């Protein structure tokens, strides 16, 4: 990294100006700008690195539906359940059931209407009104299986490849493998919902990878990055003076320890911080977006949840167009053990327009091809329920053997359904793969080979899939 001080001038770099200028341009110009940005990014630990193989997808937006969305009530309808509704489900009992899944159990039908969508004709929950318009860009996958039915362990598994917290998150691995485009912004950004997910920040930890690859959560209100803004009462002018003084002290100190190169890196980090401080507010500011853009994402509508989720989706798009490599957007509240009609209904209304807006916007800008979008929860839901609170309040419990997930853009096969679950949705039955294969596939789509993307830690060459996995080729053309 350059050690030339840019701090005292606080002038935006040429790249900064390019971004800002780029916002209003058409998609071709924007792509060219992003490419030039990639070419000129500084060296350093997060500098862009060539992928292991040529690929379309350059970046990823991961929409994480926390709580375990039901495949049966979203994209994988099971009409059979209507005829079985409220009949007893004779389940094999064994010691691998959680308490939640024991006791008398009954099949329950989906309370939702389904309708065919797109050229592809997939049947989806008809509450997905806007999303129905973009399904032809989407590849639905019904063969994936998780391993845990416990939220935090399943979330860790989906986000980090192991059920224990503390391993590097997918976004950290991708940043480690590919670096990032914009050295003034974090490589891996997380946009959490109101509350952090179960298991907390370990869901986006860099684990044993160096801290540069850590996910940075952007806060929905206040300072987007912790302590990024000077405290109230400190003017930028005064802070610049403080920083200049600090810089002089460090220079004098470095003269006494000229051989110690870490000192330079630390001085540079203050300059980088200052550049991030200058650039980030512009990226997170949605107030300058056009009314058309805002409404495309469902921002400003009467549904507060839809507004908040739409904002996170638009922010995700702005972050990736500003050169962030990996953005994870969280939407919580999918854990509908009871009242699934109300609970899932509200969730679907909350995410419908944000998702559709995101896919449309990316397509409009010509970026969908090179942006991988993933939508998934930590597991699916059961076709049966213990029927708490009488017959009207039914929902579904956790299910690791079937789950909904879809991918779009980034070279995946648009308008296709891959794999299948059994007739009641209890378990995946065709093109069945474990989570690690999904991870290997995600890396593959981004140009990374899981078996080459390794890091030596505690005497073991660690990799996202732990022990290797298989690319799910059916998912991409």
């Amino acid at each position, binding site marked *: 990294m350059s050690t030339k001080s840019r701090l005292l001038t606080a002038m935006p770099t040429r790249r900064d100006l390019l971004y800002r200028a780029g916002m209003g341009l058409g998609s071709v110009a924007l792509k060219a700008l992003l490419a030039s940005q990639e070419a000129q990014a500084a060296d350093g630990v997060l500098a862009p690195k060539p992928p292991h193989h040529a690929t379309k997808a350059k970046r990823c937006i991961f929409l994480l539906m926390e709580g375990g969305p039901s495949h049966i009530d979203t994209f994988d309808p099971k009409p059979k359940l209507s005829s079985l509704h409220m009949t007893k489900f004779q389940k094999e009992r064994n010691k691998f*059931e959680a308490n939640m899944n024991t006791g008398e159990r009954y099949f329950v039908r989906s309370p939702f209407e389904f309708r065919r969508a797109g050229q592809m004709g997939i049947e989806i929950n008809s509450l997905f009104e806007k999303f129905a318009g973009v399904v032809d860009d989407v590849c639905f996958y019904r063969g994936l299986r998780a391993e*845990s039915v416990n939220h935090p362990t399943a979330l860790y598994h989906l986000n980090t490849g192991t059920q224990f917290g503390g391993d590097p998150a997918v976004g950290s691995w991708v940043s480690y493998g590919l670096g990032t485009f914009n050295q003034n912004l974090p490589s891996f950004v997380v946009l959490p919902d109101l509350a952090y997910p179960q298991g907390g920040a370990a869901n986006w930890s860099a684990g044993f990878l160096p801290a*540069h690859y850590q996910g940075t959560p952007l806060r929905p209100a206040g300072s987007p990055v912790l302590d990024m803004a000077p*405290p109230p009462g400190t003017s930028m002018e*005064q802070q610049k003076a*403080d920083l200049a003084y600090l810089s002089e002290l460090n220079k004098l100190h470095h003269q006494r320890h000229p051989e110690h190169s*870490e000192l330079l890196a630390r001085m540079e980090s203050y300059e980088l911080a200052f550049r991030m401080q200058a650039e980030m507010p512009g990226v997170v500011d949605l107030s300058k977006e056009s009314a058309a853009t805002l409404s495309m994402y469902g921002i400003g509508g009467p549904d*507060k949840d839809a507004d908040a989720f739409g904002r996170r989706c638009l922010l995700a798009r702005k972050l990736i167009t500003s050169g962030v490599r990996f953005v994870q957007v969280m939407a919580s509240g999918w854990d509908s053990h009871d009242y699934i009609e109300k609970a899932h209904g509200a969730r679907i209304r909350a995410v419908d327009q944000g998702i559709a807006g995101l896919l449309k916007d990316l397509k409009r800008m010509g970026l969908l091809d090179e942006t991988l979008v993933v939508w998934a929860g930590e597991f699916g839901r059961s076709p049966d329920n213990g029927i708490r609170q009488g017959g009207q309040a039914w929902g579904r419990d956790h299910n690791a053997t079937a789950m909904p997930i879809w991918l779009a853009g980034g070279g995946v096969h648009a308008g296709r359904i891959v794999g299948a679950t059994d007739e009641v949705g209890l378990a995946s039955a065709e093109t069945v793969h474990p989570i690690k294969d999904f991870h290997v596939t995600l890396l593959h789509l981004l140009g990374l080979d899981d078996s080459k993307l390794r890091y030596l830690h505690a005497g073991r060459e660690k990799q996202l899939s732990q022990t290797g996995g298989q690319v799910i080729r059916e998912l991409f053309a």
Partner: protein
Amino acid sequence: MNILALMMLMVPPLAAEESVFRSIIQPVLQKDCEGCHGPAQALSKLDLSSREGLLRGGQRGPALVPGKAEASLLYRAIAADGDLKMPPGGTSNRLPPETVAAFKRWIEAGAVWDQTAKLDVWGNYKQVDLWAFRPLKKIFAHLSVDGFINAKLAEKKLSPAPAAERRLLIRRATLDLTGLPPSPAEVEAFAADRSKEAYAKLIDRLLASRGYGERWGRHWLDVVRYADTGGYSNDFERPNAWRYRDYVIRAFQNDKPYDQFIREQVAGDELYPGNGEALIATGFLRAGPWEHTGMSVEAVTRQMFLDDVTHSVSATFLGLTAGCARCHDHKFDPIPTKDYYRMQAIFATTEFVRPSAPFLPGEHTHNFDAGRANLKAKLDRTKQQMDEFDRTALERTMKQHGVTRTEDLPAGVAEKAKRSKAALNGSEMEEFKLFQKHMQLYRESMDRFEPKAFAVSSGPLDGATDGGPNLKYPLRSAYQAQDVAILPGGNLQSPGEKVTPGLFHLVHRYSGYGEPEIPTTVGNRRAVLAQWMAHPDNPLTARVMVNRIWQYHFGKGIATDSNNFGKMGRKPSHPELLDWLAAKFIQQGWSVKALHREIMLSAAYQRSSAALDPKQVERIDPTNDLLSYFPPHRVESEVIRDSILAVAGELSPDAGGPGTFPQINKDVAKQPQHRMGSLAPVYRPSALKRERNRRSIYSFQQRSLVDPMIEVFNGASMDFSCERRETSVVPTQAFSLLNGQFVQDMALAAAARIEREATTAESRISRAFSLAFGRAPTGPELTLSLRHYEQSKAHHKGHPAPARVPPQPVVHMITSELTGEQHRFVQQEDPATFEENLHPSQVGPGTRALAGILLALFNSNEFVYVY
């Protein structure tokens, strides 16, 4: 034709194939395949340990068709010719082409199987990779640290740096042994003391100071992943875990012999029944994250503990990363899967308990009354609010029944109304659930003040289960030891061969040190393990600990990977020195303090951090493994925080007892935190400064909510053993130190302190440098500082500080998992009156300007690096 080719011609073909089998085929089958497809595991019902097994094949049919490689699934899999590709793990795990070709030839020649060939799993390792398992050397070429270090330097013709300047030396030693900077008076006294014994006396003083136990206890807590909560969904408090933390601090402070330290932590309950100290020590075994809820599977939860404890004991005391052997024979070290599960079986009878254990002399209970009262106030208030909902539910039910008195309700209706809360609306119900969750958490916290131990026992103690409501222990009399079996691929659902408890055989194998039988009874399994580890003849124990101590002094161990002394760990730079120190450590009664003296009194430790000839060093020893100069390194996050508090004069003298709550970033404090089904109470820093400004080791360690300032400076993971702190440099560190409210507040407090201690601008700046750096400012630094001070003062004159913002109520939203609706709550205030920090609006422009100087010093490289 050479001799070899001639011989090849002469031997009969059968024999040649046998030799290929012995030299290539069988080793590959045993090393790369049988982990999953062997007699113990046989995934896909395939067993590759015999020719019959290959012919019989597995779920996909026969694996071998003799004479036809292309038709043999075994060949097609290793050639990755088709959808089945083996060994798994992607292309980099595949067998080399020449091996694949050898398989092809072998199959085509009839797949001859030599029944007599039996690979010795123990004979497969290179001597150089087994160094740590060999007995300690007994005869040494040198008899001091410097003897070994200087010999290598001389060998490489490297000139050592001269001794460090005295002010730097006392700063280095003080930060090293206490984690705090020396006071200006201590620096001056040492600089002035030219006596020969001055330095040795300094080390003795530091080793005796209270800061020593707090500093070195923290290192141990890194290794054991200490936390005050259990992690996962509820992240429940472990209200008595602090007694283990204080035990560790006491152990270092009192120089508890390390062998005793091991025995107590691994088997204190078994070896020293009735001894409270030893019982508390067993908290080590359950320090990892753990939770069992209605949504987790009991057998899985138990297995996660067993894997965790096997791994943690191996890494902590033996420097072995055994986890790889969970699924397959260890690929690099001589740890067969069977040995891993035999080791695990030692813990099969280890159960969680929370028995009563009276407080010991030396345990800190002084602040209990205030702590209890504060919690009680929260509990009572929460209870009141819950009662309110009971009343509402009851009143509405009465209305529905058209009555005005509870007595007029039909029998049982009142109770049911209160219990079911059916009369509450969705929002009220969510709020009720919130209070319910808070009650549960507060009730658990009340146990902080009870004389109980966070401990284990062999078999349950009647009535003392400690696993939450979802775990049921049988009575002790009905308890049976859980069977442990090899789990093929780590998969709990298809157990393989059952094993009896046992030790890692590699130790006996390569060192000759005895391998005692582990009893199969419920009790005393761990006792044997502990005695076996805490023994002078165990080649790993002393080496591993000595290396850790060395690492904390120099920033890097003699062997760099202090949790991995196996093949994949980097080899020691000075193996003989490591052995000599280990032998000395044992000889001096496993005294850690004696070891500190041995290391710190060496010239190697006292050298300047500037290489004598940097160019020479760059060429010969660029990573400074040979220690021709003292390696400068960044201090840990806790040291940064504690040093800031010390300079500000705000560091609390209080020690021990339940964790306290430091001032952390406000956004993080207010961040809603999920607790299964609801939200936790808001993080509140301790109301009193003397509570919240304690040394960081006393901070409540919550797995799901880490002080971001500690975290950003590479704090230790609470999930995995942290063998060594990373020192990455990231811009968010700058934000935290420059803009963080804590650092800002402390800079102001330091300025106010310095104004009381010195009168002129110049003397104040000088005092600031002495406090922060242990030295006076240089001429240019003073000029620079005075200029910045005057400029800032002028600026602040024109820009008065904004008034203090009174605390705002914290509003949280939660999305109901029942209905998907959002509900809004105002979180409770802390009942205690908050003792505020000094605020800029309370001081003049001069103090604020001086605070700016302090802020820069806290951010400077000199403050965060040790030289």
